[in-house]
C-alpha cells in the first residue's frame, strides 16, 4: 500500500464522480423543460419566460454546465425548483430518515445473510443447505415492490398489526426493514455460500486439517479470511448504495427519505435535487469502493503488493 497507489485511486475516484455528475447533468438538461411540471400547462407566456430567465433555461447546455461547475466549486449546488429552498437542504432534511432505515436494515442484512450463507456452505448438500438455498432463491427472485405489497396485505390489511405508510414511530420501521432484509439477506446468503464453497474445497484446507488443526480452527484461520474478499466487495457495494438504495421501499411505504425524494424529483424534473442526490450517491459509492480496496490489502497482503507493482 504505497502512496502512489492511493493517489492513483483517489484521482480515479474523483474522475468517476465528475463523469457521473456530467453525464447526469447533460441527460437532465436534454430531457426537457421543468416549466410545465412546475407552472402547469396553462401558464401564461410571460410566466414561462420569467421562469426560464430565473433558472437560466434559455442558455445553451454548455453555458449552463459552465455555470453549474462554477457554482458547485463555490459550494452552491442550486435551489430546489419545487421547494424553493437550497437543493442541499432538501436532501439533507431527508437524510436522517434514510440513514436510520438503512442502518438498521444493513446491520440485519449483513448478520442474517452472512450467517445463513456460512451455515449453508458448512453443511453443503445437506437438508439445511437446501432449505436455506430455497429461501434464498425465492428471496432474490422477488422484486422489492412485490414483497413489500404482500407484506402490507398481510400485516397491515389482514392482521392490522402494523402501519403501512409513514414514519412516525418505531412500528413504522418494521415493514420497510423487513422488506429490505428478506430480499437482500438472500443475496448475501447466496454470495457468502458460493464464496465459502470456493475456498473450502481448496487443497490448503486439506493441508490445514492434515497438519492437525481442528475443523473450527481450519475454517476460522484458512477458509474465512479467503472467502471474505468477495463478500466484502458486495458489502462495499451495498454500503455505497446506502443513500439511494431504498428507492422502491421508500416509495411504497411513503417513507420521507432520499430515495422517495429522488423519484419525486425525477418525475417533476427538479434538476438540482436530482443532481445533488446523484452527487451524494457517487461520492458514497466511491468512498465505499476505496475503503473496500484498503480492506483488501488488510485481508490479503498479496493484493496491495501486486497492485502497487502493476
Amino acid at each position: 500500500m504505497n502512496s502512489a497507489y492511493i493517489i492513483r485511486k483517489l484521482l480515479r475516484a474523483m474522475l468517476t464522480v465528475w463523469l457521473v455528475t456530467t453525464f447526469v447533468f447533460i441527460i437532465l438538461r436534454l430531457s426537457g423543460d421543468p416549466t410545465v411540471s412546475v407552472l402547469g400547462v396553462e401558464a401564461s407566456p410571460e410566466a414561462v419566460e420569467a421562469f426560464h430567465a430565473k433558472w437560466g433555461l434559455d442558455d445553451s447546455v454548455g453555458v449552463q454546465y459552465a455555470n453549474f461547475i462554477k457554482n458547485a466549486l463555490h459550494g452552491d449546488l442550486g435551489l430546489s425548483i419545487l421547494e424553493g429552498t437550497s437543493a442541499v437542504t432538501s436532501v439533507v432534511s431527508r437524510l436522517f430518515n434514510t440513514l436510520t432505515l438503512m442502518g438498521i436494515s444493513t446491520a440485519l442484512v449483513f448478520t442474517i445473510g452472512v450467517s445463513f450463507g456460512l451455515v449453508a456452505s458448512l453443511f453443503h448438500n445437506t437438508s439445511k443447505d437446501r432449505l436455506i438455498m430455497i429461501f434464498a432463491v425465492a428471496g432474490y427472485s422477488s422484486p422489492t415492490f412485490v414483497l413489500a405489497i404482500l407484506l402490507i396485505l398481510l400485516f397491515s390489511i389482514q392482521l392490522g398489526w402494523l402501519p403501512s405508510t409513514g414514519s412516525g414511530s418505531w412500528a413504522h420501521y418494521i415493514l420497510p426493514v423487513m422488506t429490505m432484509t428478506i430480499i437482500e439477506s438472500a443475496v448475501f446468503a447466496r454470495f457468502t455460500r458460493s464464496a465459502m464453497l470456493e475456498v473450502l474445497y481448496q487443497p490448503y484446507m486439506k493441508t490445514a486439517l492434515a497438519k492437525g488443526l481442528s475443523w473450527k480452527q481450519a475454517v476460522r484461520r484458512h477458509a474465512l479470511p479467503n472467502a471474505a474478499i468477495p463478500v466484502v466487495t458486495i458489502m462495499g457495494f451495498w454500503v455505497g448504495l446506502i443513500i439511494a438504495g431504498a428507492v422502491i421501499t421508500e416509495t411504497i411505504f411513503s417513507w420521507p427519505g432520499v430515495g422517495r425524494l429522488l423519484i419525486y424529483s425525477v418525475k417533476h424534473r427538479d434538476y438540482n435535487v436530482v443532481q445533488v442526490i446523484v452527487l451524494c450517491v457517487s461520492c458514497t459509492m466511491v468512498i465505499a469502493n476505496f475503503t473496500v480496496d484498503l480492506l483488501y490489502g488488510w485481508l490479503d497482503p498479496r493484493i496491495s503488493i501486486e497492485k502497487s507493482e502493476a
Partner: protein
Amino acid sequence: MQDTITKNKRITTSPEGYRGKGLLVGIAAFWLLAMLFIGFTAPLIAPYDFQEMDLIARLLPPAWMDGGNVSHIFGTDAMGRDNLSRLFYSIRLSLLVAILGTLICAVIGSTIGFVAAHFRGVVDETVMMLVDFQASLPYMILALAVIAFFENNIFLFIGVMGMYGWEMYARFARGLALSAQEQGYVIAAKTFGASPIRIYLRHILPNVGNTLLVNMTLNFPKLIMLETSLSFLGLGIQPPNTSLGNLVGFGRDHILTAWWLVIIPAMTIFLTTLSMSILGDWTRDKLDPTLK
C-alpha cells in the same frame, strides 16, 4: 463437510436432491413456456380487448368469489376493464421488453468485449474503465436519470433496458476472446487469411457462447425486475400500454377493497422471475460450472 474434504469426496449432488431439483426445473420450464405461449398469443386468447371499458361492471371480484362473474374470470379493474385480458397483454409486453433487452445487451456487451480484446491498447483501457465505471454505479439511478428523457417512448425505454448489465458481457467476452486468441484454432484460422470479423463470429463466438448464454439466462430475471419496478413507479411503460408492473401499481390504489388486483400480477412476476432464476442456475450448472 470436514469428512467430505478429508476423504476427498466432493459430492456435488446427492441422488435424491437431484431428483427434487429436476422436478423443480421441470415446473419452472413449464411455467416459462406457458408465459411465452400467453405472450405470443395474447391477442387471440384474451377474451376482451385490454382497453375495453365497462363502467357498469367496475371492480368486479374474480369469478370464484361472491359477486364474481364467469364472463370476467379474474374480475375487472377500476375502469371495468377485464383483468384476465390485461394480464395477458401485460405478460406480452413485459416479456417482450425483457427478451429484447437481454438480446440487445448480449449483442452490444459482447461486441464491446470483443472489440477491446481485438484492438487492445488504448481501446482496451477505455473499455475497461467504462466497465469499472458502470459496475460501480447503481443502474437504477442512472436509468432514473435517463428516464426523464422518455415521453412515453417505448423504444427508448427498451434501449435503456438493453444497456442493463452490458458490462458483465463485455468483461466475459473480453476475457474469453483474449484466451481464445492463444488457442490453436484461432491461429490456424488467421493463417488461412480469415478476416477478424469472420474469426470472431465463426470461430471464437461458438466456442465461448456457453458463458455468454449462461449470463443471458441470469440477466433475464433482473431485467424483468427492473422493468416491472420502473413501471410500478410510473416511470416505465406508460398507459395505455400495460406491463405487469403497471398492473401492480394501479392495483395498489385499491389494495384495501380489491386485493386480487395486486396479488394476481404480483404473483405472476414473482413466479416468472423465480422460474427464470431456477432455470438459469440449472443452465449454469450444466454449461459452465466455473461461472459464479
